């Protein structure tokens, strides 16, 4: 029963990794590049929503209703993502992927330091709005088995957000253009699709998702602490992306949940100090035996 509990806890928390992984994979799918600043910018979105909440809702326990906070965070996430696109991708050379990689690392460091400056590096309380949905923060099924209500909510919202994303990608014209650019950049260009604009849109979509994720993580954890959390989350997000298959959204989701469950089981078995070592090993197993990941395409000819 212990391990079942560990797996379920891990799966639920894995939704966080999945959300971050989707952001990486979306951008990778369209631009074939990594945006290392993704998680940082997403959390910055959550900080903006917190800042607004602190200014607007001075009295009591934050005056803003939860969905407004999430909305603000999502919008801010989108704006930040667009800025990241401008400073790291729009004007760096297309064929030289190192340039945008380094620029996003620079952005990651800078965003991090900006948040440190704004908050003195101290953790900021984020209203635990998701907990309010359930009377009891834990859904206890038995003495042995219980689920965190807010994590379950996060999980459900993550699933809904992902379905929404898939709908955008597969049922709208915008999504069509995005997929066209992802698959055949040149051909898409010839069909009159403006690649720059599509890229920017993808960034904004990923950023909106990231802002939402940042706010939800804040709400679940109860605190925002950029400089400690973002780099580990970025690493996990990248691992999830690779395990799921670069560019594959279902892959990022399954990969995220899988990594979440896997690490929690190893936490239970081997303890926290070794936990991440096994996550890395899982990645190496994938790289060795299935480098294209769970749902990745096999390399096709150019």
């Amino acid at each position, binding site marked *: 029963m*212990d391990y079942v*509990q*560990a797996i379920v*806890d891990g799966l639920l*928390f894995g939704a966080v990794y999945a959300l971050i992984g989707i952001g990486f994979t979306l951008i990778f799918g369209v631009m074939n590049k990594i945006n290392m600043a993704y998680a940082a910018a997403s959390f910055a979105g959550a900080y903006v929503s917190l800042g607004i909440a602190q200014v607007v809702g001075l009295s009591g326990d934050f005056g803003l209703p939860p969905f407004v906070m999430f909305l603000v965070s999502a919008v801010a996430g989108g704006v930040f993502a667009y800025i990241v696109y401008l400073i790291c991708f729009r004007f760096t050379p297309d064929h030289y992927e190192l340039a945008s990689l380094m620029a996003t690392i620079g952005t990651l460091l800078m965003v991090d*330091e900006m948040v*440190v*400056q704004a908050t*003195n*590096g*101290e*953790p900021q*309380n984020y209203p635990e709005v998701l907990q309010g949905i359930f009377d009891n*923060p*834990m859904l206890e099924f038995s003495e042995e088995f*219980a689920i*965190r209500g807010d994590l379950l909510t996060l999980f459900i919202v993550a699933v809904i957000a992902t379905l929404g994303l898939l709908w955008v990608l597969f049922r709208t014209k915008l999504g069509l253009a995005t997929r066209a650019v992802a698959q055949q950049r040149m051909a898409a260009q010839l069909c009159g699709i403006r690649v720059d604009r599509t890229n920017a849109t993808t960034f904004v979509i990923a950023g909106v998702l990231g802002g939402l994720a940042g706010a939800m*993580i804040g709400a*679940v*954890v*109860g*605190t925002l*602490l950029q*400089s*400690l*959390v973002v*780099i*580990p989350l970025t690493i996990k997000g990248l691992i999830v992306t690779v395990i799921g298959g670069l560019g594959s959204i279902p892959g990022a989701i399954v990969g995220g949940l899988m990594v979440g469950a896997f690490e*929690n089981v190893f*936490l*239970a078995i081997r*303890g*926290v*100090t070794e936990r991440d070592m096994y996550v890395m090993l899982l990645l190496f197993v994938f790289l060795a035996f299935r480098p294209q990941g769970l749902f990745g395409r096999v390399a096709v000819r150019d």
Partner: protein
Amino acid sequence: MIVKRFYLFAGAAAVALTGVSGTALAQKFDREVHIAGFGAKSGVVRSFGVNTEGMMRAAADKINAGGGIKLGDGKMGKVVVTFYDDRCRAEEGISVIRRIASGKFVVAVGPTCSNVAEPLFGILQKTVDDKSDSGLQFPIFTDTAIKGGLAKISAWAFRNVPNETEMYKNLFAWVKKKWPNLKTVYGGVEEDFAHSRFTWYKVMDKQAKAAGFKVLGRAKWLLADTNFTTQVRAMKKAKADIISISSHPFTLCGLLKEMRRQRVKYKVLIGLTSSSSMETLQGCARQAKGIIIPTSFAPVTAAAKEASAGGAKYKASADLHSAAAWENMMVLKQVMESKGVMAKAGTIQADRRKIRDGLAALKNTQGLIGSIKRHKSGEATKPFVYVHAQGKEWKILHDPNK
């Protein structure tokens, strides 16, 4: 083109630099006594550096307002504080201390991180007058880096940090006496931070056992963890009377929240000295209610209140770490005056030696909440009180000295 751009950039920086260092000498003082502070003013633990710097400046203001430091030749010296950022990285800390040692500074107060202090003390000369040891000869008087036993690394290193072994020894004995029917302890430790890890394994665990408690186990997590479900589940199963947590406020709050969610029952909750800060109360006042922490600072005396108010002017909050910076400045004034520091350009190495010897010779110093005993090793035993979280503030629970 590129070269030209580079010159422009360098030129701008040079201008910025000269602007920073050119401070005018006030009329009534004859010379300046330069004291360096250093610590993390960027990165995760920026608040440490901000608080230490503020308290040092406030203390310098107080000293200067009282006429400054009386130098060896009867002239008066003005205390000038310069603070350097080391980002809590060992390498940068070493550069900073080398920079300070090559400058006009007679002594340094810092660093704020134990993981910087350890390598830093390592590059100092181990024993005085050991010609074969080429380590740096520069006195450091640490205020914040608290991990146990560091000052014995070098004879040039002194610390005015609470002795956690004493504190927890005392605390566990007191708990045993006060609630004699409590038998068991469950620990919690943030594994990857030098201080919290040391304090669990080398202090809390040992002292709890020494006081006659049975340690049932410990929950472990990392500084960047946000999910504690599995750890808390094990903690709940153990059903310990006392839960003793060695971690910083960031994860302390996460853990306490999870404990509340899972309705972990306990009789007494004990925390790490560093958690007796405002961050804990801001983060999780409700969940932390009643947590008992020994601390070497609380605004209980007039002197302590004055220091708090002084620091507030520089946006620094006085806590058990930064209050020590204030105390250090006062101790340094006393040492410099008694040893007759000259603060002239040519006497700098001699001044440093005088300060080191002065610090080493001290048996007792006056702290903000009582008398501090100084040890040969360079460590101190500071008076402490037990505080517990009540609503939005820390209240004194018990004063072991009374």
